[in-house]
């Protein structure tokens, strides 16, 4: 017979005002198995917990019911208290008589009656509770970073500095991401490459960091501490170990028809190429779509000129399977396609460019060597018009409903960069609102207006007409109500940012969720901003939402520290309330394996002796480390062989019976 102790909490007057706690304790004492029933003002206080601990020892209680606030509040507290007194923590049940009773009911009689019923249910359940011991799982001391932009680089460096091995997967041939394309960074106007390239080199030289460029995640399985990731290393056709990075192959390659992705299509690149001169690793890639050798079989010049014999046309995609303890996702963002914005003539006139193309034009390492030239005729423009919010804060199907966050600042930066180099160029900025929260951000934007004489116009541009070699920009100044017409030479569109096209697919591989805009969702918007709902997977940078560089770096370090916290543990303790298969009943239909969202149930063959014969039988087996305890399988199981520890069929039925008493 169980020896159950019932402790009824007053919670000051929170419970005691609407529930007759004395009556509850009196009734509880009559319930089967209850040997002690008492009440106290504040069970969660030090004294209350001592009362519980002493009672367990003195009365030799083997089960405890605390009738108090919601288990979401203090279940952990009371379980710890019980554990200190030598009782298995899972032999404690909470009857929620505050949130579910005293706070929602006014009539004292009714509330007392309900409280007694709730205590009865808890007593009925706890009678059937069993000691549960949480399992332990080991942790693979290695982290994976998906995406090698500034977020990925920072995360990798931080984790590596803590002494753990890190692998970085980057889809393109070089790490660096969007930041490598940018010219200057706001609000200090220091050169992006000058601060990024040393970090890229650090990442490649770090003994704990392993770069997988030109690679993608193919499959992810496993669970926190023990992810197993299949990485597809695309065939580079150049042997990384042999290549000296001399660049002769690139120079001699005759194929020059492909638009350079890194230069935002402003110039062409060769079929064998490195995205940019400071690429890490500085090893070229053959674009097999463009390569004449791969298309026609004739050419192979690169192979002939390569003295290091690094070119390998036969190279194939290779798969790497590696175990990781933690995963950080930092896949970044893209700009939206402006094809739907016909009124701005993007794609129709070469002098209408996106802000990222402008970054390349103004970049000293870019196609114009930093000279501001119109793409159409390579002449210096006289009037430049910037249009903000192209596709941002847009409720139609053409754009995105959110604010892209970075455009106000980079547009001010662009305007300032022009004015600094060419004070004679007229610069107009059309905006809806200027949003510059951030350290030294508003001062920066105001400097563009006040010191550099950039003309900010509140209002949107209605249409950009290509007119001869000019662009006629029609707008309105919303404040004065004046209609405005500008004969511009260059129009720069601040296109909205968006999540990567393949974010949803990657999310599915990792079983992490994406929001309506395909950005990855954090576990809690305020308190858990870098964690995902899947334990052991963290987010860094613009893949979670639009972000500027300082925020990205901050989040990257936060994600790194979360990963380090995980990796530094010697083992993880898992939830003991997991499913359990009764092998003698299991019929081996494996229906449960289909519904398990964690792939925690697998099949196994057991052998047992029946009437002197050895019989082999196919049964399900639950991996307790993977099982999260949802209990879906218990209902699916046809013979009823699966039960959930802590919420067993018997326990729930006992509760139902007690409540209907």
């Amino acid at each position, binding site marked *: 017979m169980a020896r159950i102790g019932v402790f009824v909490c007053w919670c000051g007057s929170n419970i005691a005002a609407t529930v007759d706690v004395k009556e509850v304790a009196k009734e509880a004492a009559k319930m089967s198995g209850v040997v002690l029933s008492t009440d106290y003002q504040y069970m969660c206080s030090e004294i209350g917990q001592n009362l519980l601990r002493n009672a367990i020892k003195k009365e030799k209680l083997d089960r405890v019911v605390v009738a108090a606030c919601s288990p979401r509040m203090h279940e952990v507290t009371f379980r710890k208290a019980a554990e200190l007194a030598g009782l298995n923590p899972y032999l404690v049940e909470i009857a929620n008589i505050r949130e579910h009773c005293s706070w929602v009911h006014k009539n004292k009689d009714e509330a007392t009656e309900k409280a007694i019923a709730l205590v009865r249910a808890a007593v009925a359940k706890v009678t059937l509770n069993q000691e549960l011991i949480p399992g332990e799982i080991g942790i693979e001391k290695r982290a994976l970073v998906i995406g090698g932009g500034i977020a990925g680089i920072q995360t990798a460096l931080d984790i590596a500095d803590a002494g753990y091995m890190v692998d970085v997967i980057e889809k393109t041939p070089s790490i660096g991401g969007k930041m490598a394309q940018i010219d200057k960074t706001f609000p200090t106007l220091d050169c992006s490459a000058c601060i990024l390239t040393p970090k890229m080199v650090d990442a490649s030289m770090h003994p704990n960091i392993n770069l997988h460029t030109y690679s993608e995640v193919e499959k992810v399985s496993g669970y926190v501490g023990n992810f197993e990731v299949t990485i597809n290393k695309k065939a580079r056709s150049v042997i990384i170990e042999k290549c000296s990075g001399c660049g002769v192959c690139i120079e001699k390659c005759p194929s020059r028809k492909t638009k350079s992705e890194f230069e935002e299509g402003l110039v062409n690149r060769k079929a064998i190429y490195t995205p940019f001169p400071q690429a890490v690793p500085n090893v070229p890639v053959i674009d097999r779509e463009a390569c004449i050798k791969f298309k026609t079989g004739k050419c192979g010049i690169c192979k002939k000129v390569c003295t290091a014999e690094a070119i390998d046309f036969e190279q194939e995609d290779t798969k790497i399977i590696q175990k990781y303890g933690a995963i950080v996702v930092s896949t970044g963002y893209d700009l939206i396609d402006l094809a739907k914005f016909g*009124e701005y003539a993007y794609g129709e006139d070469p002098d209408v460019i996106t802000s990222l193309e402008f970054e390349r034009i103004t970049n000293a390492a870019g196609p114009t060597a930093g000279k501001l030239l119109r793409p159409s005729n390579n002449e210096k423009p006289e009037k430049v018009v910037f249009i903000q*919010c192209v*596709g941002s*804060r*847009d*409720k*139609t199907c*053409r*754009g995105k409903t959110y604010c892209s966050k970075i455009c106000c600042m980079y547009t001010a930066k662009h305007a300032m960069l022009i004015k600094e180099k060419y004070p004679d160029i007229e610069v107009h900025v059309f905006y*809806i*609102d200027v949003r510059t929260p951030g350290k030294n951000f508003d001062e920066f934007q105001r400097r563009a207006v006040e010191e550099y004489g950039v003309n900010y116009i*509140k*209002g*949107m*541009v*209605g*249409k950009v007409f290509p007119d001869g070699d000019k662009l006629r920009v*029609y*707008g*309105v*100044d*919303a404040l004065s*109500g004046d*209609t*405005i017409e500008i004969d511009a030479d260059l129009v720069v569109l601040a296109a909205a940012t968006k999540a990567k096209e393949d974010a949803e697919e990657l999310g599915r591989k990792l079983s992490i969720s994406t929001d309506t805009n395909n950005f990855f969702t954090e576990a809690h918007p305020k308190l858990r901003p870098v964690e995902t709902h899947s334990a052991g997977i963290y987010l860094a940078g613009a893949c979670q939402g639009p972000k500027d560089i300082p925020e990205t770096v901050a989040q990257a370090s936060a994600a790194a520290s979360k990963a380090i916290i995980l990796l530094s543990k010697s083992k993880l303790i898992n939830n003991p309330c997991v499913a359990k298969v009764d092998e003698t009943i299991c019929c081996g239909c494996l229906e449960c394996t289909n519904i398990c969202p964690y792939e925690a149930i697998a099949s196994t063959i057991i052998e047992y002796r029946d009437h002197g014969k050895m019989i082999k039988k196919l049964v399900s087996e639950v991996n307790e480390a993977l099982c999260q305890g949802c209990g879906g399988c218990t209902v699916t199981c046809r013979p009823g062989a699966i039960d959930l520890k802590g919420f067993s069929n018997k326990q729930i039925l006992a509760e139902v019976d007690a409540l209907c008493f």
Partner: protein
Amino acid sequence: MTRVKVNPSNRDKEISRIIEISGENIYSCMQCSKCSASCPANSEMDILPHQVVRILQLGNYERIVNSQTIWNCASCFTCGARCPRDIDITKIMEAIRLTVIRNKGESRIDVDELPEKIDDKMPHQAIVSVFRKYRK
């Protein structure tokens, strides 16, 4: 300048009617003025389209109906096509015009007189809209 009483929460009857007839959410507007910038008739307007929406938000019906803008609107739909907030300003303009017409007081069409006025080439739609606009 006259001081206007602003009380957007206590919506004017006429403003509610404009919202109802047009079916557009005027509170979605964030005053980017793209409609005004796109409008081919904006040079003739005393109040620009984005200002019309703002004045509606503020609830100043009188100022809208006394402006030339609503009659200068050519209903070309450019504003609505380019609006980033998915507001069809043309529908709002039409709704304002309808409230003016409906408020005119007299009923200009009588069912009994209709048969003799009908012309074979007249589209049916026109007959329906005549009732919508001119019959009280």
